C-alpha cells in the first residue's frame, strides 16, 4: 500500500495563475480540494488571500521563485522539504528558491496541521503536481513565442530549450505563462530523475536562527502591545474562589489586573466542542503589564484562594485504578482474531507481564504564548500553533464573531510535540485582548506550562502470551489508560495478523487532568511495552529474538489481511539492516545490546541500543537505527528528525517522571523534572532502506521503539527486566548528572 493511492483531487482546478502587477507570475493552488472556478490569485502580492488558496508560488521576471508556504514548522523541517517538492518538478535551482511562511485568513485549509508526521505524506503528490504544471505553462509560453510545438521544448534548472538549441529563461516568459490556460494531466518525474529530492538541504531559516533574528511567537511584537500573565488553578479539580491583587498592582510595570472566564463558560454552555479547545470553566486572574517580567512578578504576587469543584486526584490512586482495570472486566475489544480464550485455556505455559508509564508534560522549549488583538472589525492572532485553522474557529466561537474576521499568522514554533495542537492559549489571549481592548501577548512561564498542561496520559498494559509445546499460540494485550485509548488503527499494527489468536482490549478511567496528543500518541509507550515483552517471550520460547520476529512476519505475509497497517516485508527489511549495521551479537567486551522493531506513523523502524554499565548505571553508548520511510526527501533534515526522535525517546523513557498529588503536579520546572542532556546521549547511527516508494513522515516513528531497545539491553547486561517508566528514578539520576 502506498499512501498516494489515498489522495484524490481534481487536476483541473487545483491551481490558478495570474500575472502580477509588479511583473512575474503568481500561482495559487489548493492541496486536496478544488479552487473556486471564478477566483484567481490577486495581482497584488500584498493581497494574497489564503481563503481561496492554500499556498502561492511567485516566479519573478528574474527567474527567482518564492514559495509562500503556509505549513507550520515545528522542527520537522516541512518548511524546507515541502518547497523542495515544488522546486523539483518546476525544475529550478534550489538556490533560486525562497520560502516565506504564509499568513492565514481562512476557513478551509485542508490538513494545515503539523503533527502526526503527516505533512510530507499528504503533500507529496499535490506539491509535485503544482511544480510540474507550472513548468509546463512556462514551456507552453516559450513554445508559443518561438512558434514551435511545446513537445519539442524541454526545461531544466530554470532554462527552456527548443529543438534548435535556442533558450529562454523562466523569467523571460513568466508574463506570457501567467495568462495561459492551466494544462492538465502533467506527468511527474521518475524518482531516478530527481535532482533536488534526495539532496541534503539545509533548513531554510538556518541563517536567522543562528543570528538570533525574531522568528518565534515569543519574539513577536506590535506597537502598543502589552503582556499578560495568567494565574490558573494550582490543582486540577479546583476553581477560583477569590483573590487579592493589592500587592500585584503595586508592582512597577503592572498596568491592570483582570479576570477572564465568563466567555469560556458561555462557550462551553453553547456546546462548542472541539478536540483542541482544552478549556476550564474557572475564572482566571490575569496580570497585564508593560513588560513580561512585571506581568510574571504580578501574577506571583496575587493572593488567591481556590475551592474544590471536582476530585483532587493523585498518581497513587491512578496506579491502583489502572491496575484494577487491567484485572477487571470492563474492556472494549478493539480487535479479536481466532480464539484467544481457547488458546490460553489449552496452553502449557503463559507469560504475563504488566508495563507502566507516567503522565508526561510536553515541555516545548518555547513556553506557550500567543498574540491577540481584538478590534471592532477584526481578530488578529499571531503565534506558534500546530492548528491555525482550528485556532480561528475557536476564537470566532469564543467571541461569537464571524470566522472571516479572524486572521491567524503563524510564527516559527519552539517545539510542538502535540502541545500546540490545542487552543487553550489562543482562547486566553483572545479573551484578554477582548477584555482590555489592547493588543496583548499572553506568556506562560515554564512553571505555568508544566503545571497546566495537556499531558501524555498515564497508561498501563498487561500483555500475555500462551505457549503450547514450545510454540506461541495466542497473544492478548490489555490497555488501561486515563482519558482515552489507543486509536482504532493501532490494533492493526504488528503483531496483528502474525499470530492466529490475537486480541486487543482497552479500558478507560476518566480524570479531570487534561490529557492529549503527545509525540507519537499511544505508540510512544505501547512500542516499549510490546517490544520488551517480545524479548522476554523469545526467551520463554527458547528462540532467537530476531528469528522470532522474522518468523512472525512470515506468518503475517501468509495471512493477507486488508486492515493490517504495516508491511511485513518492510519490517523484515529494517530488521535485517539493523542487525547488519549494529554488528548484532558481536559487540565488544562490556557492551550489551538490545533490539526493538516497530511500525507506526506509516514508517518502519528497527533499533539496536548498545549500552555499558558503569557503577550499576546503564550508559547508552550507541543506537543503530534502520528506517524505511520510502523516498528520503531531504536526508539532512531526515537525519535530524530521526536522531532527535531516538534521543528524545531515550530521555523520556529513562529519565522523565511526572506525578500528581491532590490534583497538583509535583514538578514544575527543570530542576525537578529531567530532560535528557548532552552527557547522557549516545551517537545515533542511521541507515535508510533504499526505496522508491512515496515518502512517509519522520517526526514520530523513531521515538516509540527505543524504550524497549534500552530495556532489552539492560536485561542483557544485568538479567533485570524493566517494566516501569521512567527506568531510572530521579535519585539514581542525580548520580549520573550530578
Amino acid at each position, binding site marked *: 500500500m502506498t499512501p498516494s493511492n489515498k489522495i484524490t483531487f481534481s487536476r483541473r482546478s487545483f491551481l490558478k495563475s495570474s500575472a502580477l502587477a509588479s511583473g512575474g507570475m503568481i500561482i495559487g493552488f489548493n492541496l486536496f480540494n478544488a479552487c473556486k472556478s471564478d477566483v484567481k490569485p490577486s495581482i497584488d502580492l500584498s493581497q494574497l488571500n489564503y481563503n481561496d488558496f492554500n499556498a502561492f508560488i511567485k516566479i519573478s521576471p528574474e527567474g527567482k521563485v518564492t514559495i509562500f508556504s503556509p505549513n507550520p*514548522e*515545528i*522542527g520537522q523541517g516541512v518548511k524546507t522539504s515541502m518547497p523542495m517538492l515544488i522546486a523539483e518538478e518546476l525544475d529550478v535551482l534550489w538556490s533560486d528558491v525562497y520560502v516565506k511562511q504564509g499568513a492565514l485568513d481562512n476557513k478551509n485549509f485542508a490538513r494545515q496541521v503539523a503533527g502526526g508526521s503527516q505533512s510530507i505524506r499528504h503533500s507529496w503528490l499535490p506539491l509535485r503536481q503544482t511544480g510540474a504544471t507550472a513548468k509546463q505553462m512556462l514551456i507552453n509560453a516559450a513554445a508559443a513565442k518561438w512558434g514551435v510545438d511545446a513537445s519539442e521544448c524541454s526545461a531544466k534548472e530554470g532554462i527552456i530549450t527548443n529543438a534548435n538549441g535556442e533558450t529562454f529563461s523562466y523569467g523571460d516568459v513568466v508574463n506570457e505563462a501567467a495568462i495561459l490556460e492551466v494544462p492538465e494531466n502533467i506527468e511527474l518525474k521518475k524518482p531516478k530523475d530527481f535532482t533536488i529530492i534526495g539532496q*541534503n538541504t*539545509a*533548513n531554510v*531559516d*538556518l*541563517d536567522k*536562527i*543562528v*543570528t*538570533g533574528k*525574531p*522568528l*518565534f511567537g*515569543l*519574539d513577536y*511584537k506590535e506597537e502598543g502591545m502589552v503582556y499578560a500573565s495568567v494565574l490558573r488553578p494550582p490543582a486540577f479539580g479546583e476553581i477560583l474562589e477569590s483573590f487579592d491583587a493589592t500587592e500585584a498592582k503595586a*508592582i*512597577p*510595570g503592572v498596568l491592570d489586573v483582570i479576570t477572564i472566564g465568563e466567555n469560556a463558560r458561555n462557550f462551553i454552555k453553547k456546546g462548542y466542542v472541539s478536540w483542541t479547545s482544552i478549556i476550564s470553566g474557572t475564572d482566571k486572574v490575569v496580570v497585564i503589564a508593560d*513588560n*513580561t*517580567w*512585571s506581568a*510574571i512578578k504580578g501574577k506571583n504576587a496575587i493572593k488567591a484562594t481556590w475551592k474544590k469543584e471536582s476530585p483532587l486526584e493523585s498518581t497513587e490512586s491512578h496506579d491502583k485504578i489502572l491496575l484494577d482495570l487491567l484485572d477487571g472486566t470492563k474492556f472494549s475489544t478493539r480487535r479479536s482474531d481466532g480464539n484467544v480464550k481457547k488458546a490460553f485455556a489449552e496452553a502449557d505455559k503463559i507469560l504475563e507481564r504488566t508495563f507502566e508509564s507516567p503522565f508526561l508534560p510536553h515541555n*516545548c*522549549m*518555547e*513556553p506557550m504564548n500567543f498574540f491577540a488583538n481584538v478590534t471592532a472589525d477584526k481578530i488578529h492572532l499571531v503565534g506558534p500553533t500546530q492548528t491555525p485553522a482550528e485556532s480561528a474557529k475557536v476564537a470566532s466561537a469564543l467571541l461569537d464573531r464571524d470566522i472571516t474576521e479572524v486572521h491567524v499568522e503563524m510564527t*516559527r*514554533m*519552539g*517545539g*510542538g*510535540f502535540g502541545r500546540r495542537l490545542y487552543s487553550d492559549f489562543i482562547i486566553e489571549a483572545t479573551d484578554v485582548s477582548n477584555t482590555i481592548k489592547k493588543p496583548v501577548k499572553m506568556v506562560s512561564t*515554564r512553571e505555568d506550562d508544566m503545571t497546566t498542561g495537556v499531558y501524555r496520559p498515564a497508561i498501563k498494559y498487561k500483555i500475555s502470551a500462551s505457549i503450547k509445546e514450545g510454540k506461541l499460540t495466542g497473544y492478548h494485550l490489555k490497555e488501561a489508560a486515563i482519558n482515552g485509548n489507543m486509536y482504532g488503527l493501532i490494533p492493526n499494527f504488528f503483531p496483528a495478523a502474525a499470530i492466529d489468536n490475537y486480541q486487543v482490549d482497552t479500558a478507560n478511567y476518566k480524570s479531570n487532568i487534561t490529557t492529549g496528543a503527545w509525540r507519537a500518541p499511544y505508540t510512544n509507550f505501547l512500542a516499549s511495552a510490546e517490544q520488551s515483552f517480545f524479548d522476554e517471550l523469545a526467551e520463554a520460547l527458547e528462540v532467537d529474538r530476531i528469528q522470532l520476529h522474522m518468523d512472525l512476519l512470515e506468518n503475517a505475509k501468509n495471512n493477507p489481511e486488508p486492515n493490517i497497517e504495516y508491511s511485513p516485508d518492510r519490517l523484515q527489511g529494517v530488521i535485517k539492516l539493523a542487525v547488519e549495521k549494529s554488528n548484532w551479537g558481536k559487540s565488544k567486551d562490556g557492551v550489551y545490546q538490545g533490539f526493538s522493531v516497530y511500525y507506526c506513523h506509516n514508517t518502519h523502524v528497527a533499533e539496536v541500543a548498545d549500552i555499558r554499565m558503569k557503577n550499576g548505571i546503564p550508559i547508552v553508548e550507541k543506537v543503530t537505527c534502520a528506517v524505511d520511510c520510502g523516498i528520503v526527501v531531504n536526508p*539532512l*533534515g531526515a537525519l*535530524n*528528525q530521526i*536522531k*532527535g*526522535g*531516538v*534521543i*528524545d525517546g531515550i*530521555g523520556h523513557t529513562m529519565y522523565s517522571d511526572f506525578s500528581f498529588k491532590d490534583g497538583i503536579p509535583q514538578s514544575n*520546572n*527543570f*530542576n525537578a523534572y529531567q*530532560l*535528557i*542532556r*548532552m*552527557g547522557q*546521549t549516545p*551517537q*545515533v547511527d542511521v541507515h535508510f532502506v533504499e526505496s522508491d516508494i512515496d515518502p512517509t513522515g519522520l517526526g514520530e516513528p523513531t521515538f516509540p521503539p527505543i524504550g524497549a531497545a534500552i530495556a532489552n539491553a539492560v536485561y542483557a547486561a544485568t538479567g533485570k527486566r524493566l517494566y516501569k517508566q521512567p527506568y531510572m528514578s530521579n535519585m539514581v539520576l542525580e548520580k549520573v548528572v550530578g
Partner: protein
Amino acid sequence: MPTFNLKINNKTHTVETDMDTPLLWVLRDKLDMVGTKFGCGIGQCGACTIHVDGNAMRSCLLQVSQAEGMNITTIEGLSENGDHPVQEAWEEVDVPQCGYCQAGQIMTASAFLKSNPNPSDSEIRNAMHGNICRCAAYNSIEEAVKVASKKIS
C-alpha cells in the same frame, strides 16, 4: 523607576526598569533583542545564555542592577555578519530543529571554545551539559562544536 546604563554589543543603552528585572527581559522587552531566549527562568536550561565579560552566563538569573559596567554580548552581537566560527559550524552541520535553544547553545559553545579552543570529547560534553535541547539535536550540536573548534584552533 531607576535607570541603568548597559554596555551591550559594544553600544551603551540606557534603560528604565525595576532593579530586580532579569537582564533577559530587559534585552527582550525593552531593547528589542529577542535572540536571547526564555526557557525556564531558573538557570536550568541555558536558552538565555549571553556573554558577560567573555564568560557564558544565564541572563535569566542576572539582575539588571548587577549588569551595569559589564561587557555584555548577545547572540545579535556575537559577530558582525553571522560569521563567527561557531555560527558557521552550526550552519555547516545544519544543527537546528525547532531552533529555539540554539542561540543559547551557540553562546555557551563560543565562550567555551574561547577558553578551550582544542577540547576533548568529554570536555565538550561537560561544557554543553547545561543547555537543554528539547528537540534533542545533541548529536549535531556536539558535531558542530567539534567543527567550530577546528576552525578556531
